[in-house]
């Protein structure tokens, strides 16, 4: 049965009747599985590469996984499911004229696909544009066999990744040029490359032209449809809406947007045109992108704060989870907060629930705005906005080698990642290194070669991590070689600094300034705890041999409960105990130095990220029992957060352990915290408590907080009774992203309810 359950009221900002209707539709889509995102299998979550699809799981089409096999990772898709496959699959140009791995073959498919994507305008909308299918449902998206072979080899050694890089295009480029201006830019650049005889560039820009022209047709169809409806509509309110839509769309078919509403509409079209290839990105600093439009319209008297907020809220509802960020610093390192920052967060406050917005803290941030953002987090309790530390993010970019000019304009962009807006294609978020696996190989070698000395064992560990990293590097480099041919990101390229100028797709070498490769390292706290326990019990006290330990692990500790507890009883990361926290520094420094010593074919080094979005849930049985006393069926630790239930001293010791690591050396590492609602007494202002907590956490060097306010017992009830309306609106911050709890795969739910629920911290 399809239903809508309205959320509890948590905000004092009133919605207009029009927005309320749109909100209800958005909730309907989320609650009734119209926005689910799937992956092929558990391997995808652990290795970020399924061995099947080259991307997330296409929802329909020849590369779609079987329904009983794929895993639902929650309602964070932009695609709106209508229950049907794309009707023109067989007419795709690549099917009719032949498929080839090149940008023009791709562009022709894209144009055909967009032309056949219907215009969807709902009553009461003022911001329009949505889609039912992604290109990966209609065009063959698979790398050549040589690449897949390398992928499987990497997986054997504990690594993988689809390199469907998340980046952050600079929408400012498009807002300034409009589609017509972009087209002109492409043609000018093409003429230049033609003159220089750079054929490859000319061909690429032909493809870019094909794509841009199709987007212009797409926007024009919206304008025409809205005009048609405006003419025939009798209801005055609806008629007025259609007129607004018609005017807005008509004005931005080729021209650059000149008003606030046109800018919002332009952004939504860009998001649709880009995301329709099956890949979402971050979309930058919304407060910086819109502030000039806002001020101009207010000055002209055609816009006020409230209406601007309503339109931003509508934009949020259209896309699903929005990857925008707010706050941070400007070019001169002064606070960049402006009125649009407020409007952006107020728009969320008005809607609540699921979203992926980020607020970038720094010591000089507008105090009132920061307090408000914290208040929203505490009040709605759904992990939105994500709170991140601008200064640490910028420092990590500078440390990697970004120029000052590229590093200041950084945007939190989703999960744990952040980008220099428009200036990087730093393959991140979807590469994985399961650090437990090289450790396990090292243990086997130590047993075979009878190594009893800790230093020697560390050398073997170092060698084995190196082996895994090497095979990952090889796999990645092969992917980079093929990527611009297999699945160029042409729409993204239109709003990047470099690709059009250079005649190269953003995925290609030398297209943009920064091309690092980031790798999510999975199971770090388990490796830390395991290495520490082994160092103590095997190498120092010599209470057990490695062979004996391996036997116990092989049997999943069966019959060795006392021994398991001895390993479990060793100090664990997350309790502010220096000895084991030093091991955490040793292990993280090691993997960082190792990754930083490897280069991709774009000339940039690898970087670790102390985060992995969901692999820890599924990796347990794949890697088996571990020397930290963990049984095979237990999940691994979540990112750099201590292993479930091992941080027994409360939250502050955990934070102290957590922040001993210098996060500027890593590409993100979010701190996950689940607060029970009773943590907040009725008479205390939630915002004040969240602010105090978050500010101190950041001052200690933390980079990101994902804060949920929820009662884990309620979630357990929700698992038993998912159809019960009272559970339908519970939104949880899974890792870096939020989703409706009852929509998620059961495994995710199980992992979630194992987390520590702090009633008092």
């Amino acid at each position, binding site marked *: 049965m399809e239903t809508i359950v309205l959320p509890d009221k948590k905000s004092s900002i009133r919605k207009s009747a029009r927005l309320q209707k749109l909100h209800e539709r958005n909730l309907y889509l989320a609650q009734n599985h119209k926005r689910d995102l799937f992956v092929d299998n558990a391997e995808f979550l652990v290795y970020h590469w399924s061995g099947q699809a080259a991307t997330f799981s296409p929802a329909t089409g020849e590369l779609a996984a079987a329904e009983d096999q794929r895993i639902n990772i929650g309602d964070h898709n932009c695609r709106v499911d209508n229950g049907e496959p794309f009707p023109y699959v067989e007419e795709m140009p690549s099917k009719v004229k032949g498929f080839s791995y090149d940008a023009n073959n791709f562009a022709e498919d894209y144009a055909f696909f967009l032309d056949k994507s219907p215009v969807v305008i709902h009553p009461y909308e003022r911001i329009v544009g949505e889609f039912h299918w992604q290109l990966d449902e209609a065009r063959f998206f698979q790398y050549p066999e040589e690449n897949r072979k390398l992928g499987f080899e990497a997986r054997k050694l504990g690594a993988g990744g689809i390199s469907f890089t998340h980046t952050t295009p600079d929408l400012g480029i498009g807002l300034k040029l409009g589609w017509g201006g972009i087209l002109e830019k492409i043609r000018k650049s093409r003429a230049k490359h033609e003159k220089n005889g750079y054929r490859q560039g000319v061909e690429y820009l032909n493809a870019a032209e094909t794509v841009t022209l199709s987007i212009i047709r797409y926007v024009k169809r919206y304008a025409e449809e809205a005009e048609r409806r405006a003419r025939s509509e009798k209801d005055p309110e609806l008629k007025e809406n259609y007129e607004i839509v018609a005017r807005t769309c008509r004005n931005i078919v080729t021209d650059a947007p000149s008003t606030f509403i046109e800018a919002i509409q332009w952004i939504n079209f860009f998001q649709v045109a880009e995301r329709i290839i099956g890949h979402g990105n971050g979309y930058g600093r919304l407060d910086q992108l819109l502030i000039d439009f806002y001020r101009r319209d207010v000055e002209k008297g055609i816009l006020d704060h409230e209406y601007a907020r309503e339109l931003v809220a509508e934009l949020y509802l259209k896309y699903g989870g929005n990857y925008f960020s707010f706050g941070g610093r400007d070019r001169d390192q002064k606070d960049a907060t402006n009125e649009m920052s407020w409007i952006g967060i107020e728009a969320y406050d008005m809607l609540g629930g699921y979203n992926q917005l980020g607020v970038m803290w720094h010591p000089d941030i507008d105090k009132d705005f920061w307090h408000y953002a914290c208040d929203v987090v505490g009040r709605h309790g759904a992990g939105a906005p994500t709170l991140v530390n601008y200064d640490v993010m910028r420092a990590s970019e500078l440390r990697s080698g970004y120029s000052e000019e590229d590093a200041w304009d950084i945007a939190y962009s989703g999960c744990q990642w952040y980008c220099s807006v428009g200036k990087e294609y730093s393959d991140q978020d979807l590469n994985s290194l399961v650090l437990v696996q090289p450790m396990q190989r090292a243990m086997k070698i130590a047993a075979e070669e009878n190594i009893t000395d800790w230093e020697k064992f560390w050398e073997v560990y170092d060698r084995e991590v190196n082996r895994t990293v090497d095979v990952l590097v090889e796999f990645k480099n092969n992917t980079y070689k093929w990527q611009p041919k297999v699945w160029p990101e042409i729409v993204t390229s239109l709003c990047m600094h470099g690709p059009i100028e250079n005649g190269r797709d953003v995925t290609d070498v030398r297209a943009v300034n920064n091309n690092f490769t980031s790798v999510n390292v999975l199971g770090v706290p388990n490796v830390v705890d395991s290495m520490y326990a082994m160092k103590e019990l095997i190498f120092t006290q010599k209470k057990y041999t490695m062979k004996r330990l391996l036997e116990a692990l092989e049997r999943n500790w069966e019959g060795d409960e006392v021994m398991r507890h001895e390993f479990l009883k060793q100090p664990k990361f997350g309790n502010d105990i220096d000895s084991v926290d030093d091991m955490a520094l040793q292990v993280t420094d090691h993997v960082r130095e190792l990754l930083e010593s490897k280069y991709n074919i774009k000339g940039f080094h690898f970087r670790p990220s102390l985060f992995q979005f969901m692999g820890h849930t599924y990796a347990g049985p794949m890697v088996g029992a571990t020397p930290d006393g963990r049984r095979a069926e237990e999940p691994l630790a979540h990112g750099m957060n201590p292993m479930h239930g091992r941080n027994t001293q409360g*939250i502050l010791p955990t934070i102290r352990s957590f922040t001993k690591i210098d996060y500027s050396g890593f590409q993100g590492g979010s701190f996950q915290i689940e607060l029970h609602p009773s943590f*907040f007494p009725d008479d205390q202002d939630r915002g004040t408590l969240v602010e*105090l907590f978050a500010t*101190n956490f950041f001052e200690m060097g933390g980079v990101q907080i994902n804060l949920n306010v929820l009662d884990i017992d309620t979630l357990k009830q929700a698992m038993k009774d998912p159809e019960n309306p009272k559970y339908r609106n519970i939104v949880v911050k899974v890792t870096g992203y939020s989703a409706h709890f009852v929509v998620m795969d059961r495994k995710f739910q199980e992992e979630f309810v194992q987390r520590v629920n702090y009633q008092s911290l």
Partner: protein
Amino acid sequence: MALQALVTDIHSLSAHDGPGMRTTVFFKGCSLRCAWCHNPETIRKEQEITWEAEKCLGCHACEMVCPVKAISFNRESNYIIDRESCIACELCVEVCPAEALKTAGEKYSVEELYERIVKDEPFIKGAGGGVTFSGGEPLLQVDFLKELAKKLKERSFHLALDTCGMVPPEHLQGMLPLTDLVLFDLKEMDSRKHKVFTGAGNERILRNLFVMRDYIRERNLKTEVWIRTPLIPGMTDTEENIYAIGDFLAQEFSGMISRWELLGFNNMCTTKYRKLGISWPLAEEELLPAGQTRYLLEVARKAGKGLKEISFSGLTRREKVVPPRMNG
């Protein structure tokens, strides 16, 4: 010998023991024996060994290592400790592989406890937060407490003292100048009942309230006072009791008391009793119905006219409106 205290727990970032976020220190040893005690491990003033059945592997290592043969296991493999002969040498805790055995009560010097609290400083100093001394009855270790409080005051921490009032008056007086907020428990106005519920009559407690009032006035202290009344089903949760407390406070202490909190009962501490091997009569007791707590809050507001702030906090059970309990 340097002063030492026995502490059962230190809670960082508690939002329920006074204003803001606080670090709460639980001192071991209490002068009352409340039937509903939420921290049973803090009652006795000696260290105690606790046992967690769920964690126990049944390896009997503790039994073998005990020098005074205080440990045995019954036929159902339940651990039994003879607390009279136990000398709290902690050998069993050390040897237990599963951490099923733990010691309740850790010794701290003033310096050690100070260092531990200061670690939380940035988190607890903003938003009116600070440090709360709780227990048990912290004033039973008053010399230690004063030393610690002096050091913390030098660093401008906001200090709260959570007391049951069953202490020599000079202990209370000695701490008042160092205390920003007293959380004073007033549980039952009928002294006979008080004796049944807590093991002692309430005369000394009431007297100490006057002592505290006069001391604060005479010395012109800025110490704030909150009164806290636990609502225990079938015991303190009567209209009569709440009215009597409210009336008493309004008559004698309005002006001095800035808040009176009614605290709802819950049985979440049941596992603590189990670990100590104590059977707790209230283990199965339910939360109070929301209707009853609302009613009692009304009674409190009526009786406590003139008191600044009267509130209820805690979990309640959802139920159709229930007539208030009218026993006693």
